């Protein structure tokens, strides 16, 4: 999933960051208060591919691309539609702490930090086996 981008500007300098290819592997546990309805919570590990382009006076000074991981958690509901299908609505928060490094500008005293949390709300249509 290509998620989001942030651009920050300082005079003629700017930084563009992006989380993309969000993924996760999560456990979940829930209960069925009524037939065909599942309420659940979920927690696991999330991954992302992170990139940042740092420009100085319109010139690309530094380009960063790296993977990051962090906790992913949330909850949702699923509604059984047939023996082989269900729809699901889910909230998942990804908590990433990525990239702390030297800044792109003239002085060694500059630094660039990027901290990321991503909130996602999603719906899905799923097809299932019966066992």
């Amino acid at each position, binding site marked *: 999933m290509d998620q989001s981008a*942030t651009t920050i500007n300082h005079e003629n300098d700017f930084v563009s960051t992006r989380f993309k290819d969000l993924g996760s592997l999560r456990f979940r546990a829930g209960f069925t208060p009524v037939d065909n309805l599942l309420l659940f919570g979920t927690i696991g590990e999330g991954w992302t591919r992170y990139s940042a382009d740092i420009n100085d006076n319109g010139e690309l000074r530094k380009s960063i691309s790296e993977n990051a991981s962090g906790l992913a958690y949330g909850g949702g509901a699923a509604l059984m539609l047939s023996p082989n299908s269900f729809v699901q609505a889910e909230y998942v928060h990804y908590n*990433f702490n*990525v990239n702390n490094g030297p800044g792109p500008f003239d002085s060694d*005293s*500059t630094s*660039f930090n990027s901290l990321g949390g991503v909130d996602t709300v999603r*719906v899905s249509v799923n097809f299932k086996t019966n066992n």
Partner: protein
Amino acid sequence: MRKSVIALSALVSLALSSAASAQSHQTFNGFFVGGVLGATNQGPSATLNDDKVELITASVSNAGAAGVQAGYNYQMNKLVLGVVGD
């Protein structure tokens, strides 16, 4: 994105209409795979510092998201345990 939302809405509507005739006592047991559409309401933040003084910080960017997921659910009476990857 709009076309995807419309397509998903149509698919959900079709599925919901079939749900009326679905049998009761179905379980969530089994492997599953599905298509996912969603949105983010908060994106990454980035900060530029000079001599540890914050120059500027910006964050929050709304965006759409699309993908696939797959997993397995195991149901024991009203309790459901599972694993999912996306």
